């Protein structure tokens, strides 16, 4: 055989193999010619490899859970009624006394795998979700601080006497943790919980196909079968790509619009925007467990070096000014009177008091931020860096893509990487402890790594308050001013969630944490 023959035979074999694989529809399928089609949602963040809702704090995956999972209550958290609670799987929540809460459950609800929803599922979820080893710790205390009893299949009683805190804390939390099937929970964290989502929500999890999470309408959903046949939730890393997808009709909803994109899309026919003051604040987290920011004087000095009004100019429509460690739509919010403001003189005074006059003697500081997920992080990161340098802080900004930033985000023994980190924290409930206790109690201290007995005591005091009013007083009179004084993190502003959607998308309700309710959504 010579080279020519070899080549000819090779080409013929290749052509034969290729022809056999051709699907004629492959050439003609179009994105614009589908009738009943799923709602396409493009996300700015990738998911984790584990479907257990208690195993992560990743927003995009929480958003997927919003389509699939059921919640006892939902909290719309609109600014005019931040404390409003809408009953879903629960029909009635009653405080029997300070330490006992009775939850009546909806009957006739089934999980996507066919299991009927009962009190045992709520009990299993509460007890599992509060285990100290679950990464998403959601309840006021670990499992051994409360007791859940089920007098009948549709009644749950939560007793917090052992923990000494009010059972009312479970009211807001009921809208945060999705209800898992007791059968799934019984199989443990290595069981089906991690392999797929199984909920009582309007859409059923079908599969993860590459970066697409495929969900289909659940016909037996207790509020009625959804109007759209399904939801496809896709991770698309590039913001421009997401915007182009929305503009050409391939995507129905996109999230986390940049301010410039808002301007572009406002001028587009067929596109509408949703702007919501979110439940998320953006923070500059100090690594409090290692020098130099283990010194509160330095943290405060840094906080006084930052002009937040300039950050607001950069953020434009994507940010809302606030002066607290929680969002204005959370329970207990008020503008803390002594919240650190831009004050170069005070900054210099504190630097001198800390033993670093004019910043002299400070080690090189690394400020870690991400780009591609949160809007404008790089831009205001550069501003903060310049402002800190102006006061003598030897800061270097390190802008990373999301995965690398995520890797460096959390506290570690001896202090996490870098000295300051940019990150937001969003929890779909008015409950303030989902932020405050998660980050500032020494048992959790997710990012800043602070261990401070005074803060622990203040957090316990507000949690153990006998009534909601007493709790608000404790939050506003003790904990929040203390946080403003110790500044384990500086809350920069409250995020505004801006979603872009096609004009034909009707009835999609977006929660301030980014979750959506598409149960009644239509694509006209």
């Amino acid at each position: 055989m010579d080279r020519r023959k070899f080549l000819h035979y090779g080409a013929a074999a290749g052509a034969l193999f290729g022809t056999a694989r051709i699907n004629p529809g492959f050439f003609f399928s179009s994105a614009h010619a589908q009738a009943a089609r799923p709602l396409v949602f493009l996300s700015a963040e990738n998911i984790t490899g584990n479907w257990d809702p208690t195993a992560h704090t990743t927003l995009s995956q929480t958003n997927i859970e919003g389509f699939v999972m059921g919640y006892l209550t939902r909290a719309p958290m609109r600014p005019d009624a931040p404390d409003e609670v809408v009953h879903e799987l629960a029909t009635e929540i009653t405080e029997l006394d300070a330490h006992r809460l009775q939850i009546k459950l909806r009957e006739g609800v089934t999980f996507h795998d066919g299991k009927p929803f009962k009190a045992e599922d709520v009990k299993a979820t509460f007890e599992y979700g509060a285990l100290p080893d679950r990464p998403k710790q959601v309840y006021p205390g670990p499992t051994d601080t409360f007791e859940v009893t089920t007098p009948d299949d549709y009644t749950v009683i939560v007793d917090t006497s052992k923990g000494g805190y009010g059972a009312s804390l479970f009211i807001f939390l009921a809208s945060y943790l999705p209800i898992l099937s007791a059968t799934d929970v019984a199989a443990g964290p290595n069981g089906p919980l991690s392999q797929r989502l199984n909920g009582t929500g309007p859409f059923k999890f079908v599969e993860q196909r590459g970066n697409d999470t495929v969900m289909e309408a659940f016909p037996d959903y207790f509020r009625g079968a959804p109007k759209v046949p399904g939801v496809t939730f896709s991770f698309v890393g590039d913001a421009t790509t997401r915007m182009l997808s929305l503009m050409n009709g391939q995507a129905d909803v996109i999230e986390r619009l940049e301010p410039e994109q808002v301007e572009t899309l406002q001028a587009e026919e067929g596109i509408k925007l949703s702007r919501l003051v979110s439940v998320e604040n953006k923070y500059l987290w100090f690594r409090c467990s290692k020098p130099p920011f283990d010194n509160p004087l330095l943290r405060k000095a840094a906080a006084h070096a930052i002009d937040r009004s300039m950050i607001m100019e950069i953020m434009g429509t994507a940010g809302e000014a606030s002066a607290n460690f929680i969002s204005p739509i959370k329970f207990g919010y008020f503008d803390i009177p002594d919240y650190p403001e831009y004050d170069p003189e005070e900054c210099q005074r504190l630097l001198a008091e800390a033993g670093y006059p004019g910043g002299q003697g400070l080690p090189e500081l690394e400020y870690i931020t991400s780009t591609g997920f949160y809007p404008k992080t790089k831009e205001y990161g550069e501003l903060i860096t310049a402002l800190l340098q102006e006061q003598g802080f030897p800061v270097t900004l390190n802008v990373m893509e999301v995965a690398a930033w995520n890797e460096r985000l959390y506290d570690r023994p001896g202090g996490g990487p870098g000295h300051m980190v940019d990150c937001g924290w969003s929890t779909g409930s008015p409950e303030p402890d989902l932020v405050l206790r998660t980050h500032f109690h020494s048992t959790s201290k997710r990012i800043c790594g602070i261990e401070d007995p005074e803060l622990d005591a203040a957090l316990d005091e507000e949690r153990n308050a006998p009534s909601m009013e007493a709790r608000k007083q404790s939050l506003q009179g003790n904990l929040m001013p203390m946080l403003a004084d110790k500044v384990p993190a500086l809350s920069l502003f409250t995020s505004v969630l801006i979603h872009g959607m096609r004009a034909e998308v009707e009835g999609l309700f977006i929660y301030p944490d980014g979750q959506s309710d598409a149960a009644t959504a239509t694509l006209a």
Partner: protein
Amino acid sequence: MFILRFLARRLFQGAIIVFLVSALIFTLLRVVPGDPVRLMAGGMAPEALIEQIATDMGLRDPIWQQFGRYIGGVVQGDLGQSFVRPANGAAVGGASFDDTTRSERAEVLTLIADTAPMTLQLALLAMGFALVIAVPIGVWGGLRPGGWPDRMALYLSSLFVSLPNFWLGIVLALVLSVKLQLMPAIGYKGFAYAILPALVLAIEIAPFLIRTLTVSVAGVMGQNFIDIARVRGLTRDQIVFRHALKNSSIPLLNLIGVQFSMLLGGVLVIEFIFDYPGLGLLTINAVMQRDFPLIQGIAIVTAAAFVLINIVVDLVATTIDPRLEY
């Protein structure tokens, strides 16, 4: 027997190249900053756990030992498992240290096998488009050296080569997909989704093909056998299409082989912009996530593809011009 000797020699050379590329990539990945175990175990993992996982996986062994184990697997067709991707292939973000429940990790070979045909389709389509653009312009320019077609070929090449591909991608998506609604642009649900990214890639590589064709056609048209063909009474079309083009295509063919390597670089940006689920997007995500086994696997497969493309190019060239010997 020549073909067997030729293939044996070239494949042996190719294996050495692939081995060297693997060794280089493997070493470089282990000296750059960024601990993949931290990504695997999650941000909240304590150092002791990180070290334990790293030790269990052999990631704290000397690099040559790690490489030895790895290449042993590669020889048996095992490119390893992704550090971070689950078996469903999703690009993933952070997880938590005590999260022992992450689903089974994806096989590198499966991830590459799923995405490589997508990129191959894109590359072939782009090359087809590039030839459709370049051949008429280049041949016409070569037939009239110094004339306005030649100048136009030069200007067009300069224009095409000056357009940044990410910019062109966005503009074309905006015009052809958003404004004119002619075709879809983002993601992949069918062949139509490959057209726009292929067009952008084609415009990126067309200038090189145009210049090569212009020069080579002009060169061939000045040779004796063309003059003789005229004396033989052949028409201009016969001279151009039967003789000149065939002889001009040898440098073009070699260039196409090289351009495929450019294409594989170009797809990184283009697949990211168009969210096209090919090797380019896979590579970008793998690099961002420090997914060492995946990066290594892609590097080996890509290197092997270059080697094979070059062998095919040489074979095709000898078919067109039997005087060539390799």
